[in-house]
Structure formats: structure tokens, C-alpha cells
């Protein structure tokens, strides 16, 4: 396994997306290094939920994860949204914020969904401009997440890995490597995961997402965050750890919440793959 400097200069460890429905499980889990909150849920709150304050108090890092900046839009990101994200990051004392290489609105219509950016040189310039504009207003590093998509733009001039790599290289942004999304795109568009991992700048991985999905009646794989972690996604995590040791790995679960036992088993499985076994009292050495 390659030893690279941690992009953030620190380990994040094992993580899970914080949701009110999972607050108790998260509170009881003693080996979590970080959680992620959905930024838009907290923009207007003057105080953080006690559960979040308790986690911060015991040293669990809280990352602010946004879904509405639309960095892939033709327009610059909205300054009011950026100010809200920056305020939240400061309140959480977040080590970083993360967003997506995607757009969510167009022609004045909100989609509430992450849509792919055309992989053209023209779009690349616009995304680089938008990411730099966002970074200028954020007090902490920004990580960009690769998304899952059912559809593809015509006329792609480069691969997803190369487009992502160019954006990261030119902006200095970090990578939130979503292995579930990589798996979904492999199923739906025959993206070769191994080639993707070969080409993206893994030294920029701030942390990793894993999540479950399901195959629909349409034969397509849907990244639902509402199903168990599939074995192939854990296998991708294994492949990744053979190349580099990620600073953090986080499970995303948004819906159809399973029993605590089932979710704890998933966290255990992720910890095992990363060599951070739950019973291991020794701090993982790098």
C-alpha cells in the first residue's frame, strides 16, 4: 500500500452520515472518527442539535456536505449559499466541506437531484471557475464528489476520471471518492473501475463514501442509499486500500433504515476492510 501524506494532514477514520434517525446508533458507536451532516438541513438553525454537540465534544469530526451549490452549473455558485455553507463549517469546526461535481438546476427549475456535467473542455473551464469561486469563500478545504448518473451527455471529450483529475489539479480541491457511485457508473455505463482508480489523483482523496443501491425493473442500478452495502462496493474499497490508505471511509444511509445490528455490521465490515477493526485498541499506524 502506498504511503502518501494525508491531504488534510489528519486521519478521519470510520464514519457514517449523521441522520436524526441514526442519532442513537451513532452516539453508541465508540469507534467513529467522523460524521457528515447535510449542510442544507442546518443552514437556518441557530444552534446545532445536542447530538451533534455531544459528538464534537468527544472529538468526532463533523464534515459539512452540501448538495445544492451546483458547481457544475453554467452560472457561478450563489454567494448566499456559499456564505451559509461557510458559516456552518465554522460553527461545526469542520475540517473540510464537501460538494459534488454536478449541477442541480437549470432554466430556473430546481431538480433536487445531482446531474452530470458535460465532459467538454468548455465545461471544464466553467467548473474550474466555479470551484475557485467557492474556495474563495470557504474557510476550510473543499472536496468534490464524483456522482452516479443514469444518463450521459453526448460528445464527451474526456473520461470522467480525466475530467475530475483536471478539475482537482487546476483548483487544488480534494476528492471525495464515492465508490458506490463508481460502482453504479460501472454497472450503467461500463466505466472500468480499475482504470478510474488508476487515473484519478488518489493522493487527493480526503475521504471515501460507500453506500447501497438496488437494481430496478429497468435493469439499471440505482444508487439509493437505502439498501445494504453490496459486496462489489466493499470489493472496490478493498481495491482502493491496495493502492492507498484513505484518511476516512463513510457509510451513507438515507432511507429504509435497517436495524442497529445490521448497520453496525456494515460499519464493522468497512472497518475490517480498512484494517481498522472495531476491537483494535491500537491507533492505526501509517
Amino acid at each position, binding site marked *: 500500500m502506498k504511503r502518501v501524506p494525508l491531504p488534510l494532514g489528519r486521519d478521519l477514520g470510520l464514519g457514517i452520515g449523521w441522520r436524526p434517525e441514526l442519532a442513537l446508533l451513532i452516539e453508541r458507536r465508540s469507534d467513529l472518527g467522523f460524521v457528515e451532516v447535510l449542510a442544507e438541513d442546518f443552514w437556518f438553525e441557530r444552534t446545532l442539535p445536542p447530538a451533534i454537540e455531544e459528538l464534537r465534544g468527544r472529538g468526532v469530526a463533523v464534515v459539512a456536505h452540501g448538495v445544492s451549490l451546483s458547481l457544475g452549473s453554467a452560472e457561478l455558485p450563489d454567494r448566499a449559499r456559499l456564505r451559509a455553507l461557510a458559516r456552518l463549517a465554522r460553527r461545526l469546526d469542520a475540517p473540510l466541506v464537501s460538494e459534488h461535481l454536478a449541477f442541480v438546476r437549470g*432554466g430556473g427549475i*430546481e431538480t433536487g437531484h445531482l446531474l452530470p456535467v458535460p465532459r467538454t473542455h468548455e465545461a471544464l473551464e466553467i467548473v474550474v471557475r466555479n470551484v475557485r469561486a467557492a474556495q474563495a469563500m470557504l474557510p476550510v478545504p473543499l472536496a468534490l464528489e464524483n456522482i452516479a448518473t443514469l*444518463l450521459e451527455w453526448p460528445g464527451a471529450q474526456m473520461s470522467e476520471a480525466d475530467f475530475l483529475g483536471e478539475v482537482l489539479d487546476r483548483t487544488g480541491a480534494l476528492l471525495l471518492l464515492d465508490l458506490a457511485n463508481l460502482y453504479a457508473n460501472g454497472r450503467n455505463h461500463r466505466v472500468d473501475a480499475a482504470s478510474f482508480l488508476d487515473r484519478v489523483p488518489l493522493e487527493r482523496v480526503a475521504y471515501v463514501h460507500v453506500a447501497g443501491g438496488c437494481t430496478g425493473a429497468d435493469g*439499471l442500478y440505482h444508487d439509493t442509499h437505502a439498501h445494504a452495502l453490496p459486496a462489489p462496493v466493499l470489493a472496490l474499497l478493498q481495491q482502493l486500500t491496495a493502492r492507498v490508505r484513505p484518511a476516512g471511509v463513510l457509510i451513507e444511509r438515507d432511507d429504509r433504515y435497517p436495524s442497529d445490528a445490521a448497520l453496525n455490521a456494515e460499519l464493522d465490515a468497512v472497518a475490517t476492510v480498512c484494517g481498522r477493526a472495531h476491537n483494535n485498541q491500537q491507533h492505526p499506524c501509517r
Partner: protein
Amino acid sequence: MSLTLAEQQAALVAALAGHGAVPAGFDPARVRAAADALAFKRARAAAQAWPSLRTMLGEEFRARFAVYAATTSLPQQGGPLADGHRFARCLAPHLPLTDAARLQQLSVDMGYRSTPGGLVPRRLPWLGVAWLAQSRRLVVAFGTRRYQLGLPLRW
């Protein structure tokens, strides 16, 4: 004539919302699959934000929400809460809200101001009044987004 990125994105979003044709070069089956996924996600998020509406409509929620969503875009501010709020308003003239739904609507109105863009959090405490048709009670409520007190009056 080639379109700008903004125009291309607008065209795709319109197609996904069911308002426009599939732009040239896209796989129509994939655009349809994505549009269906978006519609499902939108309805599910609204149902989760408005459990009272989900209970009130039961099996009919999906169909009625689809009718609403076909003509009304997702609000720009307020997400699924704002979407469900608008949906409840659309329902009200044709289908009286249950007491539970009316109370949830009152609770949301206490904490948020309705605007053309959606819902905006109120900064100050608010006073609200609602008539509950099922139990024939008037409820007067006072409070903020987080802390609300309601007083039912019956006659």
C-alpha cells in the same frame, strides 16, 4: 447554431421535468429512467417531510402528488418541506385536510413564511390560527420554528 452550456442544461432539466423534448444526442430511454427516478425521489421526500399528508392520502399519495408535480416545479427554497406545503395548498380546495394535516400546515406556517420561491424561515415568533374541520375546534398557536404552543378552543 450551438447552444451555450446554460441552454443545454436548461433543455435537459426541462426534459427531466417532463416539460420538454429529449435533447439531441441523449439516449431517450436513459432520460426517461432519470426522469422517473427524479419524480420518485421528489414524491418520497415530500411524503417523508409531510407524514400527515401521507397518512391522509394513503395509497392515493403518489397519484395525487404526480398531478401536482406535473404542473408545479420543485420550490427553489425550502426543499421537500416547501414542496409538501405547496402540495397541501393545492389539495385544500378540493379535498379538506384532516386535522392532523391542518395542524402540520399550521406548524410549518409558524416557522416559515411562504414566498413565490418557496419557504423562508421566519426570524421572529409568529401567531397562527387554524380551524380543524374534523373535530370542530379552533386552534390558536404561538411560537417559533422550534418551540410552538397551541391552544384549542372548542364550541
